[in-house]
């Protein structure tokens, strides 16, 4: 018997990247209904996806992370130079 798992794993990854065709979606959904291993794989991928999403958001919102003072000064000078040469 030939298993659909290998193909299903590709389709599941693709689903994060592109819209699946109707027949791809159909085959994948039917397979997930009967295959526990692939359903777990689907969960694992969702898990990773929300983890990475959370990680990006966490850093974005972490107010303890600030522009280092020396960099701030350097940027300020660069901006001053740019605006002086323009006026």
């Amino acid at each position: 018997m030939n298993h659909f798992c290998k193909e299903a794993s590709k389709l599941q990854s693709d689903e994060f990247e592109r819209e699946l065709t109707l027949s791809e979606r159909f085959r994948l959904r039917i397979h997930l209904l009967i295959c526990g291993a692939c359903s777990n794989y689907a969960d694992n991928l969702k898990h990773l996806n929300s983890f990475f999403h959370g990680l990006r958001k966490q850093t974005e919102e972490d107010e303890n992370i600030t522009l280092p003072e020396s960099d701030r000064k350097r940027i300020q000078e660069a901006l001053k130079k740019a605006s002086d040469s323009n006026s």
Partner: protein
Amino acid sequence: MSKEISNPENWLTDHGDYLFRYAQSRLRNEEQASDMVQETLLAAWRGWARFSGKSSVRTWLVGILKHKITDLIRKEIRNRRLTEAVESDPTSSLFNADGSWVEAPTSWKENPEDLCESDQFQKILHGCIGKLPEKQQVVFRMREITGEDSESVCKAAEITSTHLHVLIHRARLALRTCLDHHWFGGNRHS
């Protein structure tokens, strides 16, 4: 438009930290992140005339920053001249010849939000990402750590979307297996 809004030094005061955090969340490299803030503000200053005022200044600045980050990654990819030769395909070892799993995936119990708080998990995760072949690693980082959409990743890496999907799929399979062995399934293997 008032003078205060169009003064780039005020942008630095009002949005500098936010832009830095955003860049840092994508690049995970302080030096590069602050360079990106500088480039963004300079570009914003030069392009100020194009600011329509339809969005907030911050949204506009973040838009410029995103472009800068993609450009930076594209340059890095070009410099490293990533080759195809080293690409490995984990599907051959993870699936049997008949297309079934060699080792069936099991569900992961831990909550993704708790994992974000765990330094130990992040260490293992970055270790697992570090083990991926270089090209998979670069596109995977761009996609998941930097959070670019598929289209931008293809442009930056100069590959077709079909190729990207294959690389990302392989990276996900390998990463899942690595995390399962080193974190989630730790007890099963002891």
